């Protein structure tokens, strides 16, 4: 009896060893490429460069860089807050249409009664924008919406006689933001759709059948069966899109046209990059802005996770914990 228990323990331990070996590469990569840069970013966020020379000395300033970005009223802070606002606007304007469209298409493509023909074809075509690099897409749209009479959109509008003069699309900040949001939504809706479809197809078909037999219409099935069943996937899509959105860089950066209008599409990532890459070598404030972005991401992620978590389960857990405590406490007396 004793011997067999010991054997079991040994066997369990040796299995664990292999488990650790398998996950070791991930942790090595994570420590070198993620954790170390993160800590190092925090370290340099407390420094400033003395001068503009490439090897200018860095001196310690404590939390001054954070103070500059968050509390001291100057163009530095104004630009930073504007960048946060821009990022949120651009992300919300691309996420809402993106999730709405993906959800609709995912439901249509998985509906047994609709029998959409050419499902495979549509899936591939809709996923395709995601394969093209953001740079090419941005360049394509920049050329489509260029400001002269030779750029396609202006050319079409002129030839239809809708406008008399070419429109300077990129000099109007609402259009510029709209285009950036549209590109991002267009690039990512196929990806989101595929993930939601996978999730919907994992729902037990008998649930749908039961609902049909009970006489539920499509809207009721969608609201009471599909959405609750794919909630974990929706949370995942929401969180990953939010993290990606907060780090939005490539498309808005390529939409810089060299006038003051660019400040309406300057995202936090662009702000960090401009600060870092400028001749001023402002690594300190750049790193501080990155840390603030990290904290914002963390907080928003936590909020979303809390809102979307199963309240009943949390209540149940709490109840069980209380019960356990009560029992333990009781035993003590």
């Amino acid at each position, binding site marked *: 009896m004793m011997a067999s228990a010991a054997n079991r323990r040994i066997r369990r331990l040796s299995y664990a060893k292999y488990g650790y070996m398998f996950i070791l590469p991930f942790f090595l990569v994570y420590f070198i490429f993620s954790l170390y840069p993160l800590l190092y970013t925090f370290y340099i966020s407390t420094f400033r*460069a003395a001068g503009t020379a*490439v090897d200018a000395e860095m001196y310690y300033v404590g939390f001054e860089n954070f103070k500059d970005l968050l509390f001291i009223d100057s163009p*530095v802070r104004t630009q930073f807050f504007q960048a946060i606002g821009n990022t949120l606007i651009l992300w919300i304007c691309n996420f809402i249409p993106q999730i709405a469209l993906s959800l609709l298409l995912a439901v249509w493509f998985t509906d047994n009664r609709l029998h959409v023909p050419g499902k495979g074809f549509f899936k591939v075509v809709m996923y395709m924008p995601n394969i093209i690099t953001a740079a090419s897409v941005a360049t394509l749209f920049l050329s489509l919406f260029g400001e002269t009479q030779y750029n396609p959109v202006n050319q079409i509008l002129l030839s239809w006689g809708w406008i008399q003069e070419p429109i300077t699309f990129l000099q109007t900040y609402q259009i510029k933001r709209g285009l950036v949001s549209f590109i991002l939504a267009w690039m990512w809706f196929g990806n989101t759709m595929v993930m939601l479809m996978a999730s919907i197809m994992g729902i037990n078909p008998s649930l749908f059948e039961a609902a049909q037999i009970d006489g539920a219409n499509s809207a009721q099935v969608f609201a009471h069966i599909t959405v609750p069943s794919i909630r974990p996937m929706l949370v995942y899509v929401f969180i*990953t899109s939010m993290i990606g959105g907060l780090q939005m860089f490539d498309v808005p950066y390529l939409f810089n*046209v060299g006038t*003051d209008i660019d400040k309406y599409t300057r995202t936090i990532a662009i702000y960090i990059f401009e600060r870092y890459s400028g001749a001023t070598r402002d690594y300190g404030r750049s790193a501080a802005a990155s840390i603030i972005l990290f904290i914002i991401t963390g907080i928003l992620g936590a909020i979303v996770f809390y809102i979307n978590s199963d309240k009943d389960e949390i209540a149940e857990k709490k109840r069980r914990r209380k019960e356990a405590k009560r029992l333990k406490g009781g035993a003590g007396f």
Partner: protein
Amino acid sequence: MNLKKNLALVAALAMTATVFAGCTKTGGEEPVDTTAGGNDPVATDPAAPADTGDTFTVMSWNDEVPVKWGEKVYVADKGLPEGVTYNPVNFGVGGGEATPYFQNYMESGEDLDVFALEADFALTFLNSSYAGTLADVGISADEFANAYDYTMAIGTVDGVLKAVSMQSCPGVYAYRTDLADSYLGVKSPDEMQALVKDWDTYLDTAAKVKEASGGKCTMSVALGGLWQVFSAAREQDWVVDNKFVVTDEVKEFLELSKTLADNGYIDTNAKTWDASWYGRGQDGTTMGMFTCAWGLEGCILIDAAGGVDGPSYGLWNITEGPAGWYWGGTWLAVSSTTDNPNLAADFIRYFCADTDTMTHFAEATGTFVNNKEAVKNIVANGGYANPLLGGQDSYAYFAPAADNVPAMNIGEYDGTIKSALNPVMVDYATGKYASIDDAIKAFTDNVQAALPNLNW
């Protein structure tokens, strides 16, 4: 979707890591016998240390200095001492993006002897410990008596000569001879110069061109080139005692751009370095553009003409325009870690001091060299009838123009401040600011955001 990004990042980092792993120090630990071979540079300063490196490295942001000039002109002409290999380093980027590439290379401690700089970012490196002084390799400032004054002012940091320019880049107003003839009755560059000799005359001429062409033809295209004219005229640094000062030239320039835009003497929709800029040179909607010595056959004007077979090739002439000014240029500096000081000195002398070799260099590449004697020689030898300019001798023109460029020091923030002014100048010209004070405020805010470490 985020996973994909992370994967790409990890892959990119992994690749970068292998790049660094692949780098080995090529700097010579082993001394080489430099007395072999007949082409050895002779050190004029006995205090200069001997050459010990087996690699002679010349670095720049593009291939112009290390390959087109260093390898194809210098090495081809003079050769290198036995046992020394030539190592051209070029990053294939624009001068504006060079800083991080240079920095990484210098920090890696690899072999470096001579590197090229542009005025906009020169001080970032000249103020650092990576740049040596020219005196370190035995070059004295007196050797550059024939250089144009403004090029020497830019290479001098706190009274110490650290970099010298191989070119002189006086700016010009290039105009279309056919349009000038039909709209203004101008037959020669001198007549044209009389019509653009200062900004008031320039505006009068612009009005005449507009009227004569029925509003089709503007006097010049984008604002970017125009700022260079005012920038060169600045007498004071942007930053004095760690405080930012808005000089009068900015206001003058903004007012002038607005006048030009309001009256339709310029096209504010056209962007510098864009097809909308070049294209105007071919369809007859612009009288001319502001460009400079490197902006003729190299870029700008050749593109504006549509290439060698372009519709306006050969129809251009150049004239000085409303003010003496310069635009860019390439300076050479020595690395503080050079292990071939004599060779580095010889390289710099070849391109920047020696009249004979500079004459050869100019004839080989068409560069407007930074040497008054060499320019005189070339002009005396018949000059250079430029086919792009319909046979006009660009050298004969550039020679006096380069003399008129005001000598000005550069500041360490010039590039950053220029970037802060760019958006404001377009927006003010197109009427997005209510007053000049608003525009100056926006400019100052941009500068403060970019340079928070100054005293504000």
